[in-house]
């Protein structure tokens, strides 16, 4: 296989400076196809910034990003999404004034090509309901299809977010701290869910919970002060003294 066949996403010298402060520093990231890849590091290491660069919510100061061998350095967020790279956000990304079903349907409806049709009744979207409910079932939200999302618990919002992301049938999912702020039960639920949906896809996730990382992820990249500190599988990385130091120094 050629290199771009092995790796679905690659960055070369990816750098982001904010007014002289380098948040992301010369990062060469390679994400293998069908891998579950974790991006970890202490608070402020630049993980979210890397996500924002990859999904084009920020423009890199320097460097290049390729997805499936295609240069996407100057694409727009919506374009990236249409190519099959869907992200979640560190703060749960749902549409609070809609029902759970409507949330998922918003993701499904773009394919119908009627999203600019302001003269068509909203009932024309009802044929997507079955698929939407199926996705909600998959994340355990069967009983909440008609619920207003603003009234749902945090854990359910995150589950809904995953259902919505799945509706896009993404080739690659970028999850920014999917278990943040969750109780143990919810963490286990979401971990299982990620494992389930990872089949046939590539996942790059930021995660602070090292338990989750060790059970889910094959490759781990450690970021510190914007630069890659080390990379490898869980055992290699967790035994690396520099990683211990980075965490001891910042966290706790």
């Amino acid at each position, binding site marked *: 296989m050629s290199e771009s066949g092995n790796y679905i996403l690659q960055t070369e010298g990816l750098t982001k400076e904010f007014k002289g402060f380098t948040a992301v520093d010369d990062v060469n990231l390679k994400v293998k196809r069908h891998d579950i890849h974790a991006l970890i590091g202490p608070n402020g290491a630049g993980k979210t910034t890397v996500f924002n660069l990859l*999904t084009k919510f920020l423009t890199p100061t320097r460097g290049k990003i390729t997805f499936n061998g295609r240069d996407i350095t100057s694409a727009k967020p*919506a374009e990236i999404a249409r190519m099959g790279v869907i992200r979640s956000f560190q703060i749960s990304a749902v549409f609070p004034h809609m029902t759970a079903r409507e949330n998922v349907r918003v993701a499904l409806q773009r394919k119908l090509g009627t999203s*600019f049709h302001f003269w068509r009744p909203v009932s024309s979207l009802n044929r997507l309901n079955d698929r939407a409910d199926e996705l909600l079932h998959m994340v355990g939200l069967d009983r909440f299809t008609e619920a207003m999302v603003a009234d749902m618990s945090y854990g359910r919002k995150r589950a809904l977010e995953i259902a919505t992301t799945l509706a896009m049938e993404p080739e690659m999912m970028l999850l920014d701290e999917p278990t943040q702020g969750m109780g143990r039960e919810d963490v286990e639920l979401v971990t299982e869910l990620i494992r389930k949906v990872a089949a046939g896809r590539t996942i790059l996730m930021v995660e602070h919970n090292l338990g989750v990382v060790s059970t889910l992820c094959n490759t781990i990249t450690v970021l510190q002060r914007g630069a890659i500190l080390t990379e490898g599988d869980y055992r290699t990385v967790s035994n690396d003294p520099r990683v211990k130091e980075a965490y001891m120094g910042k966290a706790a």
Partner: protein
Amino acid sequence: MNAKIGYLIALVLLIVAPFVIYPVFLMKVLCFALFASAFNLILGYGGLLSFGHAAFFGGASYVTGHALKVWGLPTELGILTGAAAACVLGFLVGMIAIRRQGIYFAMITLAMAQMVFFLFITAPFTGGENGLQGIPRGTALGAIDLQDNLNMYYFVLAIFVLAYFLISRTVNSPFGQVLGAIRDNENRAKSLGYDTDKYKLLAFVLSATLAGLAGATKSVVFQLASLTDAHWHMSGEVVLMTLLGGLGTIPGPAVGAGIIVTLQNYLAKGPLGGWVPVVLGLIFIVCVLAFRRGVVGEIKAMIRKSF
């Protein structure tokens, strides 16, 4: 179902109203109700505060006035020409403003509306300070004499009902769903593959066009297009109507417009004539401080609570 019955009752009331209330006053209410409902499309459903909608309202009234008076177009076509002009103007303003957020969006729309306003002051066809007077009402469908106030009223009512239906359909359409998603969480909508600027632009253009339709209709009713309708005061008034009635509810802005226009009329006649702006200002303050949801929004919340 309840909403349908409500609308039916409202429609019946509107049909019999001119036998009880002076039709010209009612027409004024309908024109402003349409203006505010159109405005709500971009503020309430698009989440963007435009402070320049008077440019579309007033601009369309000049174009319609000119089309009827100088070109001698039939009334319907004259009104459509005005709305089309507002549509084009809305597209141009929207193209520039739509990328901005919050206060910057409001400032850019205000600045562009001011430019349009000064254009109207200096342009020869607007009649300057005097406005464009003596616009002929003409006939509807080439037969119904619109000089008759009752005929004119039903003509205006028909326009209002059609436009109102279009607005409520727009809100409840596939497009409306995406618009709601963008208002709720624009970044998430982007990450689902939507070019959000394009959706916001379409909402803005629709809003401008329908605001233009309202201004065009008003110029026919009063046979006058004047600077008042293009002035930034008007942009502010429509914000007030929308907030008072209920932002992001479909009937709210129309109710708000009804209240404001009625107040203006009664106050202007009474001893408080000179105090109209002060009273409106007070209403605005009370509205923002005490009932944010507006009249219709508060009523809805009350109904929801009592169940």
